[in-house]
């Protein structure tokens, strides 16, 4: 499991490529730069600008109403911050490794959540609609809202789900927490 090819595949399949933000921003910047270059060349040739010449664009930016400057500047800064975060954040995808022999496998957290929800419903003898599961990186939070008059033991459910998680050989593994909500009113 630790050959260079395996490491590369697992790394790539559990992290985002940032292809979409990088491509989108690259296309926008290319369009803007092509336009700017065209305006500069037109100005050098003494022709009239397509939209606005570069010096008057600069003047327009400086003379714009202060509110617009703050609004546009704020938007640019927020967009830039989002790109900075996209660049530096780990970019983990919601999937984890299914350990085992011969092949490499990852499983989406959605699939794990579905499985835990079904097992929790069985263990707690409640209907599947009464169970909600949220899976984060290291924890699975199971919320059970039993029908009126029904008693659910959260410990028993947790024990059952712990077994399910252990059997799945997940990496990183999940710690299960079960919460039983007060019974909903029958309407």
């Amino acid at each position, binding site marked *: 499991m630790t050959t260079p090819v395996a490491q590369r595949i697992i790394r790539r399949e559990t992290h985002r490529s940032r292809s979409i933000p*990088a491509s989108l921003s690259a296309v926008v910047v290319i369009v803007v730069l092509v336009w700017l270059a065209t305006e500069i060349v037109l100005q050098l040739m003494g022709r009239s600008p397509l939209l606005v010449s570069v010096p008057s664009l600069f003047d327009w930016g*400086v003379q714009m109403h202060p509110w617009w400057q703050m609004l546009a*500047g*704020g938007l640019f800064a927020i967009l*830039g911050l989002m*790109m900075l975060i996209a660049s530096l954040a780990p970019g983990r995808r919601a999937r984890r490794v299914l350990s085992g022999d011969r092949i490499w496998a990852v499983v989406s957290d959605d699939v794990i959540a579905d499985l835990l929800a079904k097992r929790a419903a069985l263990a707690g003898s409640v209907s599947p609609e009464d169970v909600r599961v949220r899976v984060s990186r290291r924890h699975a939070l199971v919320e059970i809202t039993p029908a009126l008059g029904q008693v659910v033991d959260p410990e028993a459910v947790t024990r059952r789900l712990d077994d399910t998680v252990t059997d799945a050989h997940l990496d990183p593994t999940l710690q299960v927490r079960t919460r039983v909500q007060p019974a909903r009113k029958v309407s």
Partner: protein
Amino acid sequence: MRSTSRIANRLWLLLAGLLLILGGVLLAMLGLYPELALRWLGEAQQWGLGHAPEWWYAEPWPGASWATLIGLALVAVVILLLLVLLWKQGGGKARLVLRDSSSVGELNIATAVVQDLLEDALRSRPEVSAVRVRAYTVKRQEVVQVSVGCRRAAAPQQIRAAVTRAVESLDQVLGAELPVFVELNRG
């Protein structure tokens, strides 16, 4: 699994994000504290003018200084680099999962062979909704990617085991072990 250059995506997003934040903050400053922002702009311009070599102002063509031409060339280089970045997104797909010319004759195995085999192996499982096989080249090696769609409450290790068994039977037929990567998604 694709051969997208992720470090390039990260670097581009980092650089573009920082520049956008800088521009945005400057524009917002123009609205908030116009005198201060204009003084900064003026000082930056003075600094630039003071440090540019003499020949930058020479005009090889009337009206076009070297500074303008260098600027245009830089814009062209940036556009080119961004086009390369766009070109590098995705890619790395392979048509064959195995190409072997070591024995007598040549052996080629197409992805469709593996697709049929795995579909047969997983057909009996009601919790599997779809199987899709693709091949990629990772570090000059063909890798088989199997995407399995899982219906509600599929047990991941059981599906993994079924895929492993099918792959092992393929190993026996081929006399070689293909690198296989499996992803289990909700589907």
